[in-house]
């Protein structure tokens, strides 16, 4: 009996304690809030645990240099475990805290929040995530892919393969190995179109979730279909498995190009290190490596505080993407403040700010995007980097390919 009384009292105390500790919502006037969703514990944690610190470090760097036009930036991060209901909750939380831009993390999440973003008129970014159709700024006014969508990546991959195979794809065989979910299948329609245009044979190989079992598909690609080149679009742990499997069947990795989520140090390490993956081509929407002025500034900032640079910086692919996303948000806010010319900016101003981003490159880490009111993707630029001699080596500069084909699909999707 006393036991239940004790429980009751504990619960009441706990309840009272919680209400007492709800964070204060008051803000100082000179603060601009960015809502950042992250996944540090869910299915894509190998990305989130590196990408989000990159985002925060860039914001800290901006603030340490006096902020943006006198305003400090506050990035509020909430982890959603790659689940949709917590993403809805964190969106509302960010809205309550007055966020003017939202960095949405994950394909299902950007789908789930698309309607809300538009109704509440807060721009949300979905770099490297799904819904390529969102590149259309008229149809989706408040969604900003700000990086090459899967359609642009597909087009860029085909163009790259074409150059690798000597300038013509006529009669060639290209295998597309993809994670069998909506995000994984998204590029197929573009690839099928390009197969018709370029006259190559495209064969699709689906890898069912969770993407750890693909021996049969890889064997098929290497020995029955005998692909001239392979385009890979895998997530999570799957890219590492694909590297191992291709290695096992003896298929040369220099005939494999991976989309952006199979292209980080973490993927290569999980496959057994850079020695194993020699030759592997990766597609990137942010610069790779440590040699960018902005990264030096971040290291400098940590040095001034007497701290070592964070270990996440060593995982340059995801870290740099975090910096890129943070930088584009800050740049949009900067543009918005300038456009507004004083006063508190809103989501509508931030949208206009995003649409003014052009030629903002951070010394090569960010592609020379040109985001406009109609094109929220900014050109669909990527670089190809190759695993060579223990590190990533740049193979191409920023480029995009088949813009007419991609545009046709965006237009068709918008008409739906």
């Amino acid at each position, binding site marked *: 009996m006393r036991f239940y009384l004790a429980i009751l009292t504990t619960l009441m105390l706990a309840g009272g304690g919680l209400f007492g500790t709800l964070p204060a919502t008051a803000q100082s006037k000179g603060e601009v809030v960015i809502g950042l969703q992250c996944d540090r*514990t869910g299915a894509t944690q190998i990305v989130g*645990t590196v990408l989000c610190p990159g985002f925060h470090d860039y914001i800290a760097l901006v603030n340490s240099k006096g902020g943006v036009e006198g305003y400090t930036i506050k990035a509020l991060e909430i982890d959603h475990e790659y689940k949709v209901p917590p993403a809805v909750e964190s969106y*509302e939380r960010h809205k309550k805290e007055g966020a003017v831009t939202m960095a949405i993390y994950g394909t299902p999440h950007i789908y789930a929040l*698309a309607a809300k973003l538009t109704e509440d008129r807060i721009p949300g970014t979905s770099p490297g995530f799904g819904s390529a159709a969102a590149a259309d700024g008229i149809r989706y006014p408040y969604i900003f892919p700000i990086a090459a969508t899967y359609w642009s990546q597909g087009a860029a991959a085909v163009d790259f393969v074409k150059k690798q195979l000597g300038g013509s794809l006529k009669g060639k065989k290209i295998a597309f190995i993809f994670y069998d979910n909506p995000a994984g299948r998204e590029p197929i329609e573009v690839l099928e179109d390009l197969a018709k245009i370029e006259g190559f044979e495209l064969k699709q190989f689906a890898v069912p979730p969770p993407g750890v079992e693909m021996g049969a598909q890889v064997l098929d690609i290497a020995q029955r279909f005998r692909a001239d080149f392979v385009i890979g679009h895998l997530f999570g742990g799957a890219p590492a498995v694909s590297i191992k499997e291709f290695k096992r069947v003896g298929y040369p990795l220099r005939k494999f190009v991976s989309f952006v989520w199979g292209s980080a140090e973490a993927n290569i390490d999980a496959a057994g290190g850079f020695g194993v993956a020699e030759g592997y081509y990766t597609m990137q929407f942010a610069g790779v490596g440590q040699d960018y002025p902005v990264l030096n500034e971040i290291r400098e900032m940590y040095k001034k505080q007497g701290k070592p640079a964070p270990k996440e910086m060593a995982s340059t692919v995801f870290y740099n993407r975090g910096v890129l996303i943070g930088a584009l948000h800050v740049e949009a806010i900067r543009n918005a403040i300038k456009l507004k010319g004083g006063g508190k900016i809103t989501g509508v101003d931030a949208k206009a700010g995003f649409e003014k981003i052009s030629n903002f490159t951070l010394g090569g880490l960010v592609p020379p995007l040109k985001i406009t009111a109609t094109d929220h993707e900014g050109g669909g630029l990527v670089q190809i980097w190759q695993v060579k001699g223990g590190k990533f080596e740049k193979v191409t500069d920023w480029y995009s390919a088949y813009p007419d084909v991609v545009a046709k699909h965006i237009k068709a999707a918008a008409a739906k």
Partner: protein
Amino acid sequence: MIQRECGVLKTSYEADMALYPLPIARWTVAALAVIFFVVLPLTLHEYYLSIGNLVWIAVIGALGLNILVGYTGQVSIGHGAFMSVGAYTAANLATRLDSPWPVNLLAGGLMAAAVGAVVGIPSLRIKGLYLAIATLAGQLIIEWIINHVTFISGGVQASIEVARPRLGPIVLSSQRQMYFFLLFFVVLAIVGTLNLVRSRIGRAFIAIRDQDIAAEIIGVNIFRYKLLAFAISSFYAGVTGVLYTYFLGIANYEQFQINVSIDYLAMIIIGGLGSVLGSVLGAMFVTLLPIVIRLGMEAFGGVFLAPQTVLNLIPNLRLMMFGALIIFFLVVEPEGLNRLWRNIRNYFRIWPFAY
């Protein structure tokens, strides 16, 4: 304490069959109704109402699953998929035929009920873990179909946007409007379940759960009632899926994957199998606890650690605390929060004269 069973005399069949025979219970329900319909929506910020909305959606799903698992004793790991059946039925109707939301809601529920009854067919021959695997297969098959049949999924992205529901001239889009919209269905679901489980059908379910052979011998048609349990339970799941679709404005199959089925099972196990209040408490517990833990840690974490460390720590610590608390509550009371509440209530029922 104030007034108990003692002296509450029933003089008519209606009074005897009332949902809440005790005046104190009626007052409690009335007070809760006032709190949830008036006080909370008028005082709370939209953010808290959005959490409430997530809870309401979970409550309806948990109630449905509890009818099947708690009351009828049939396991299902396929409820996430039944929700997606409802969601895609409604989304397709809304976009292709432009039908109004009540029609879509009903159609989504009925389609899910039909699919649920089909997936429930193995329950006629197998029980327990075997049935769990059979429904798991149902989940995977439905997931695969929605993922690959573009006629249903509306394209490779497997997501269909739907317009916000309308009530006459009002478009329900803000969290506050959604709160009332969802709460209405929560009340329907709770009242419906409370009455279902004390009807002939509900008693048949309970008889099947307790001993299906005995139930058959006393004349319960096992074939009909097992499938009916699957159908009713899936109807709730389908309605949950439709409400979720209208809540988000989009039907997307990744919102209804297997982990959702498991989350709902966790809700009813923590809340208490075979009880309506348990479903509600379990849904609240699983939805609210992570948020509450995070808010608490955000408030205290900064006192001890650097902000970057806190950011990395919060989600991991939250998962650990969440797991630990589930274990704690289940060890304290294996029959769930509902039983915990009943123990507390029973204690006070005779308090202070415990002898």
